[in-house]
């Protein structure tokens, strides 16, 4: 696919949509736009044509720091063997309630 050298695409923006008040903004997809104002307008046209949201964020993809999927195990392992952080780790004597 990369027949030519780096293509002159507009910057990439990640779009986050809040579906309803009370919910967090969720990643909806991405788009190209020359600036933030255009990114926001395009995001509205692209991701909320059917009233899918009450609020939009657009974030330059370049500014997102992501964990590397290849390092997932090393990076996230520390949580794997600490199931005492979950209530199910503890056995309760019979008859004990509300605990």
């Amino acid at each position, binding site marked *: *696919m*990369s*027949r*030519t050298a*780096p*293509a*002159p*695409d*507009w*910057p*990439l923006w*990640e779009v986050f949509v809040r579906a309803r008040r009370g919910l967090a903004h969720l*990643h909806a*997809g*991405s*788009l*190209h736009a*020359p*600036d*933030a104002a*255009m990114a926001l307008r395009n995001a509205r*046209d*692209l991701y909320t*044509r*059917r009233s899918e949201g009450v609020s939009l964020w657009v974030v*330059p*993809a*370049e*500014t*997102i720091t*992501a964990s*590397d*999927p*290849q390092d997932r*195990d090393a990076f996230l392992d520390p949580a794997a063997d600490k199931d005492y952080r979950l209530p199910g780790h503890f056995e309760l004597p019979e008859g004990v309630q509300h605990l």
Partner: protein
Amino acid sequence: MRLAAHSGDQAPEPPGLDRLLDEVDQARQPAPPGPPPARDDPQARFEALIAADRKVEPGDWMPDAYRTGLLRQLAQHANSEIVGMQPEAHWIARAPSLRRKAILLAKVQDEAGHGLYLYAAAETLGAHRADLLDALHDGRQKYLSFINYPTLTWADTGALAWLTDGAAIVNQVPLCRSSYGPYARAMVRVCKEESFHHRQGFDSLWTLMRGTPGQRAMAQDAVDRWWYPALAMFGPPHTASTHSAQSMAWRIKRFTNDQLRQRFVDICVPQAQALGVQLPDPDLRWNAERGHYDFTEPDYDELTRVVRGDGPANRQRLAHRRRAHQDGAWVRRAAAAYAAKHTPPTRLARTGTPPTSEKDHAA
């Protein structure tokens, strides 16, 4: 703008549509926790993910051929949405009512949107948007064959939507479970919106079939011309399909072309009866033994010719697409110049360069 729905009778729900939409909802359920993937060997992990019917995500290791196959599939699909705006756009200015015009505009706008979701999914594999468009414009990358047929009458907008969007839904619903996460997520959005396209086509034909004899004849004529292009959309038979076996093993394709074509025919027959149109196949009949309708296969030589560029409107479609892109060049330049002038220098420094790999793409 609020446009009144039908003044008269409502078109009934096309039989069979609800089951397909249920499948789209099921595909949105997160995958059940599977066996822990192999830790060290990326290829073993990839194969374990596929075997457990879980998702491959951008940045995961994947075989080159998986990436190439997906890119071909995504680019062909995105291009089909973009060029697929043309047959109906032809009728926007000639729609018989304001309501039909607004519906057609919304449908064509959706198709632009679908193209953009899919290009974005392709970009998570490291492709560049400009390269994808170049490949479309100079004919290296194809789009669906039916788009190369002309829309001769108003009824064609209805028949095309009922038949080819109906075929597209049958094709695309299983792709909501594609093994590649960004493609599967894009397809859930596409299928939900596509069902409106399908439904409005059925509704438009239903209205014509309850009109004057001239309107009924126009609807039937359009169905006669779109039936086989719609059947051909599923591609050549499985035995002659170049990429099918590997794509199915990787779960980026989930059924054979023939299974999907049969499913489409089985769904269409009761819908045609509800509309009161004849499907143009004298050999179409229920086969109780198979539990399916028997039907005449489309002319696969014609399909090959159209895919190669010799359909009735190939040159026209591509020339129009190139011209639209060229005509938009000054708008893109102006927007970039405006952005350069008004974006604070710090922001520009961060966002001014295009992403160079899938790692830059947080999708």
